[in-house]
């Protein structure tokens, strides 16, 4: 009996390509007050999710005001209009509204979700928070203390140190090099006026991108959009994306008395708008993408048992692209781990992918895409990301063929361009023992500092 099962198993190896995802029907609409938004209407579950992003984020903070965006973000649920913080939070809770906001290096983003029957009430509350945040003195002080504690904690956290040090090294004078939560001195000095100045510059219709998913008609969705966003000012035009060049710096060790060395590393990456985006995307998947079949995973973890996690990801910021990597391993093998990673990067640049790797990557990257749409929140995030990257609604239909069109030569070309070990920049946090060979890192999860954490960033 087992034999029968297994015989059938073997046949499955030659299965054909995964069929394209059932197309999502994206409607590009405009609210009665003239605000554009994308909508995917799904009626099976009576829930509505609205995702939004305002272009800017920590990029529009002055260096001396670093942390203003994060502090303002946290204070949005601490009261708005006539309601103080507890009253505002009770109003959200009574309707089971989920409302969250976050800040990254290129945007301020947020999301709210409610039962379909409560969508308009939810939108009113969010609209109030965006247009009339109270920023009461007591609340500012409490949240400031919380943020300072959080900064103190992340100053002790090896993974946070590793990703922060990497970005600070790459961008010593640019906002990209700063912690998105700001610094202790700047946070301590922020005033109410600084917060008001930040939100009035940040929350404008010209910077806004919107995606809605759920059991809601286009008309009702338009009302929701206007209730939440129509009272915002038009504001100045979006900031221009002036390119910035990373300062690749070699290797840095941050000494910490911990048994495991946390490793982060970076190489040149690629902008989302680059014509070589998809070859780079395929290349990253083969080298260090998030499956158990990637080369770094095989070489570092499966063959040598050096690390629990190891991998790379494309990190496309608005003004620069990076290839970001991570690993973590015991101190006495950290340098060996870095050397293995370095060797694999160099080998990829020399040899490119095998045909089997290329075919496997294409199958995975096309076939797994529908999995990223599990849940209306994921879809709403995708709608926002697509618009931020200027992708048309038809992108979802074209995506598979764009990936299928990538050739081995394409991947090899982009590997030569990006996988330059002379530029490999490595941070090791821990006490990597001295050993032969250049240092190399070992692993950690990508922290918020190292990669954008919202769903908006992960369009691929």
């Amino acid at each position, binding site marked *: *009996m*087992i034999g029968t099962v*297994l015989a059938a*198993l*073997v046949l*499955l190896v030659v299965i054909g390509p*995964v*069929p394209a*995802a*059932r197309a999502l029907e994206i409607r590009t609409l405009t609210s009665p007050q003239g605000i554009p938004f994308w909508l995917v209407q799904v009626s*099976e*579950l009576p*829930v509505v999710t609205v995702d939004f992003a305002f272009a800017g984020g920590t990029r529009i903070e002055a260096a001396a005001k670093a942390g203003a965006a994060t502090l303002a973000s946290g204070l949005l649920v601490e009261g708005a209009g006539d309601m103080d*913080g507890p009253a505002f939070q009770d*109003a959200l*809770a*009574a*309707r*089971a509204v989920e409302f969250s906001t976050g800040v990254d290096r290129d945007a301020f983003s947020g999301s709210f979700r409610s*039962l*379909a*029957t*409560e969508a308009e009430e939810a939108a009113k509350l969010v609209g109030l928070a965006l247009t009339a945040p109270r920023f009461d003195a007591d609340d500012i002080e409490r949240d400031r*203390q*919380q943020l*300072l*504690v959080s900064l103190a*904690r992340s100053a002790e956290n*090896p993974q946070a140190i590793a990703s922060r040090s990497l970005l600070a090294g790459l961008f010593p004078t640019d906002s990209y090099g700063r912690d998105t939560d700001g610094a202790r001195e700047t946070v301590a000095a922020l005033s109410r006026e600084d917060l008001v100045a930040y939100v009035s510059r940040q929350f404008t219709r010209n910077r806004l991108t919107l995606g809605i998913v759920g059991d809601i008609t286009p008309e009702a969705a338009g009302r929701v959009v206007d209730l939440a966003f129509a009272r915002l000012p038009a504001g100045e035009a979006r900031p221009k994306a002036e390119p910035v060049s990373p300062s690749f710096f070699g290797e840095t060790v941050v000494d910490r008395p*911990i*048994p*495991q060395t*946390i490793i982060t590393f970076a190489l040149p990456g690629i902008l989302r708008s680059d014509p070589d985006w998809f070859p780079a995307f395929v290349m990253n998947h083969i080298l260090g993408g998030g*499956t*158990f*079949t990637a080369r770094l995973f095989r070489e570092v*973890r*499966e063959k040598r*048992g050096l*690390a*629990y*996690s190891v*991998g790379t990801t494309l990190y496309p910021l608005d003004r620069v692209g990076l290839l970001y990597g991570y690993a*973590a*391993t*015991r101190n006495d093998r950290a340098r060996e781990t870095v050397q293995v990673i370095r060797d694999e990067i160099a080998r990829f640049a020399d040899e490119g992918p095998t045909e089997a790797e290329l075919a*496997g990557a294409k*199958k*995975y990257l096309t*076939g797994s*895409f*529908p*999995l990223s749409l*599990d*849940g*209306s*929140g*994921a879809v709403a995030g995708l709608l926002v990301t697509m618009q931020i990257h200027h992708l048309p609604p038809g992108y979802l239909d074209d995506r598979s063929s764009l990936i299928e069109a990538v050739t081995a030569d394409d991947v090899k070309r982009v590997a030569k361009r990006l996988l330059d070990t002379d530029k490999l920049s490595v941070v090791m946090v821990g006490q990597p023992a001295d050993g032969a060979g250049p240092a190399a890192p*070992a692993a950690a*999860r990508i922290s918020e500092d190292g990669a954008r954490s919202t769903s908006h960033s992960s369009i691929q």
Partner: protein
Amino acid sequence: MSASSSPVRRRPRPGRLVASLLVTSALLAGTPALAETPPSIAAATATAAAEAATPLLGAKSRVLENGLTVVVVEDHRMPVVSHMVWYRVGAADEPARRSGIAHFLEHLMFKGTEQTSGDEFSRLIAENGGRDNAFTSYDYTAYYQNIAADRLDLVMRLEADRMTGLRLRPEDATTELQVVIEERRSRTDNDPQTRFGEAYRAMVYAGHPYGRPVIGWPDELKTLDRDDAVAFYKAHYHPSAAIVVVAGDVKAEDVFRLAAGTYGRIPDTAGFDEAKRVRPAPAPLAGDRRLVQDAAGVASPSWRRSWLVPRAEVFGRDREEALDLMTFAMGGSSTSPLYRRLVVDEGIAVQAGAYYAGARDEGQLMVYAAPAPGVSITRLEAAVERALADILKQGVAPDVLERARTRMLADAVYARDSVSSTANMVGAALATGETLERIETWPQRMAAITGDQGMEALRAVMGPDQGMATGVLLPEGLSVDDPAPAVAATAVTPPSSEGTVH
């Protein structure tokens, strides 16, 4: 197993999975709790949530001849499926001195069978556009694939194959043990908060295997080998010990047919009997059981206190749900009375809350807090005790209870938004002793719980006569009577006792 790609999941509301994710709904009409106050916005929302999620899942299930349970939740919004195999065995079932073996075996399950050698398993999944992983907890070990719905047959064949067909090479076990040791370093050894959580849990659950870390004690972990893994595998991995959960774009009858043709062909040699999973009882909490530790790398002090909750068969399953609701009402969010009083009104804490973590055996109710700058742990503890005494005496306000109920019901609707969270919710509930019928009818019960019932359950667990344990973690060199450092007090992550390891 898990590489860098641990599954991204919305953090469930603290509390028992059964109650937290699963739930929805309500038939609120005429419940005593509502009778106490005029209809509120929260009550109206709860009604809407209830209507929205009836029936809760509409799951279909079947038990195959070999004892394997199959549960299907159809969801046709996207052409994907989440397929999970839950083995009713976990870290709490490990032999003495072999802590970590359940999780180590979970890693080794990716090392191949006669038919799929080496990394073939994961390569097949990936080439078919799927994502796979696994995780281990105290009461269960689960393996899953999320994949295009028309590939369900592939993953069912692969899982059925490795249910009894694992072939382990000695060198795979040797290398993988190093990976797990690195995992422990990342997860625990590098993090003073986690190290403290591990020691605290051992104190709370003294005598019960829930007191061990799932990943294993360091000295035992390093001695595990292939033979331990194989012995554990042969003892516990059988069809009758497994629950297969499939959620997504499939028809239940098709799934049952596929299951019969794959899992159904495996003979059951063990005859899993839930009643035989007998673990030692935890020592009763008595006296001032307390762990105070200061450690390098700790930026700010924190305080926690736990009470043990008897097993559901003893405590009562309905009563346990009342406890879940009341604990969430008391301290489940920043709108709850514990947070409002200690953080907002008195300003003595920067974080305060409570949660209930249910399990197959004894559960745990935890209250936690972190002091504001200038406040000592001793002062904080006294303030928390006053707040708890008042809640135990007076209960919570009706609108507080209704907001909690609304949130729990709505969370159940939200959980259904994703096939993977749906499958998780079902599997975790069934693997810890719930029945499908109780899952489906959870909303009605949740809607009917009264404030009095909630308080009765709460007092039974944390009343003045009940034993408890207390934990304090401090920055290096600080004592419980020292004021918290100015920069040390805030966004403290609530302690977790869930103990799931990938």
